[in-house]
């Protein structure tokens, strides 16, 4: 496949996944696991794409954009690391390690977007003063999205034009223990996502539930889907119980 095509598609996907149009809609498109599947289709191995996407996604499970801040950007990470991994036939752990720095970079890109939005904010002030309803729509949705397209598309396009070659070169000259080390890091990095969620839930007296889930998998060989089912049952019982005080159960 031509590198140009890859770069164009990657740029488009990055735009779609971070456009924020439809809030949860854009989040679903921009989830690395979704992107992995799409890239997989493009490279002819959707299953491998899913696995790459999911492995990267695990790093960003816990990311919440509190107050509009993007602490790290899984969508950018995926839009760079997955096509590179396909082109160089990298293993999953290495792909994860490559993803990490781009996740951080994405945080800066969003700051550019939010700064540029000031222009349309002030234009909206003018529209309001004139009672211009349509103008407000444009300032709230259309203009910012057009600018966002440029801000999102260009960097991903450029990086993908050269990314695979650069990574290839680097990997060729790396000693084995560094490759192993990157792979070790790839296994540890998802822990960040989980630690962030534990922290943001922040109810220490409920931590035993974390350990029950953890050891349910370790000792009882229960899958995560089964844990979801039992967890929902437990949470539902807890909710009903506290809401019907005086009742027994």
């Amino acid at each position: 496949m031509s590198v140009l095509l890859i770069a164009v598609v990657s740029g488009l996907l990055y735009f779609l996944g971070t456009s924020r149009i439809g809030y949860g809609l854009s989040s679903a498109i921009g989830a690395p696991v979704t992107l992995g599947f799409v890239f997989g289709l493009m490279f002819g191995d959707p299953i491998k794409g899913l696995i790459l996407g999911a492995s990267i996604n695990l790093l960003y499970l816990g990311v919440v954009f509190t107050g509009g801040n993007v602490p790290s950007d899984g969508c950018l990470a995926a839009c760079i690391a997955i096509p590179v991994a396909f082109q160089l036939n990298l293993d999953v752990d290495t792909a994860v390690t490559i993803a990490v720095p781009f996740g951080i970079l994405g945080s800066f890109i969003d700051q550019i977007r939010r700064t540029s939005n000031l222009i349309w904010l002030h234009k909206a002030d003018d529209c309001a003063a004139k009672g211009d309803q349509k103008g407000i729509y444009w300032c709230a949705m259309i203009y910012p999205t057009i600018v966002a397209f440029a801000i999102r598309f260009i960097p991903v396009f450029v990086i993908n034009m050269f990314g695979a070659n650069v990574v290839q070169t680097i990997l060729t000259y790396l000693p084995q223990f560094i490759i192993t080390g990157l792979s070790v890091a790839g296994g540890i990095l998802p822990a960040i996502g989980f630690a962030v969620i534990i922290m943001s839930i922040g109810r220490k007296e409920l931590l035993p539930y974390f350990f029950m889930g953890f050891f349910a998998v370790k000792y009882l060989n229960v899958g995560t889907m089964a844990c979801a089912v039992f967890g929902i049952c437990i949470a539902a019982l807890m909710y009903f119980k506290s809401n019907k005080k005086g009742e027994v159960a």
Partner: protein
Amino acid sequence: MTEQKRLLSKKEVNQSHLIWYLAAETNNSYERLQAPSFCAAMARNLRKIYPNDEDYKEALQRHLEFYNTEGTIGSVVVGIALAMEEEKAKGNLTGDVITGIKLGLMGPIAGIGDTLIWGMSKAILLGLACTFALQGSPIALIFPPMFSILIFVLGRYTCNLGYKLGSEAVPKLLKSGTMNTLITAASVLGLFMMGALSASYVKVATPLNWVISSTGAAIGLQANLDAILPGMLQLLAIFGIYWYFTHKGQNYIKLVLTILLISIVAAFFGILG
């Protein structure tokens, strides 16, 4: 809020929600965050409420003031604002009250929404997606759209609820125990799932082993650790990072670099791998 005839139809309220759903984050800026999006969501229905041009302009400007909350649960504020503007048009309220209530609600609702929607629901649904994906199953693709739909449906429901109940009932709801109960129950589910997911998807193991002189058999350290408490090293990693965040501040970049460094050094000495 009395049971009088209401000005806006369900369809018109839904239109406000749709704009909000589409635009809530598109013009999020450093100065006033979600203000233009909120204003856009209100615009058409404000026109109906205020046929008079001056009132309309004033209303648009009112909703361009600083505003930020979580968009899903926060849809309730769109509904409440519509109801309040309706009251204002009848002369029962002043604009200051509307702004005050919006500012008062946005904080607690951001907290609830960020926790329930982004902290829990997203993490759980995408966590399940990852589970299937890592087994190579396209069933994974069911879960991300479920998130989009959840946000849309919940937002539409809360927006209508807000319009129906107006500005009085919702703050009461927030104060009542129900929200707290809901968050506790969701926290339990969230923690339980994060436990299960991290058990599966954090990977740390040591290849260290020693040879028993008498028999020549090799004994792996990892096997022994597993016998004592399986997943000990994984827990160490997770709660090490947790400790780091809570005690050393949330410097993400420094943390990632530290993990990379430790991993490479440990790989060099054959301690991890």
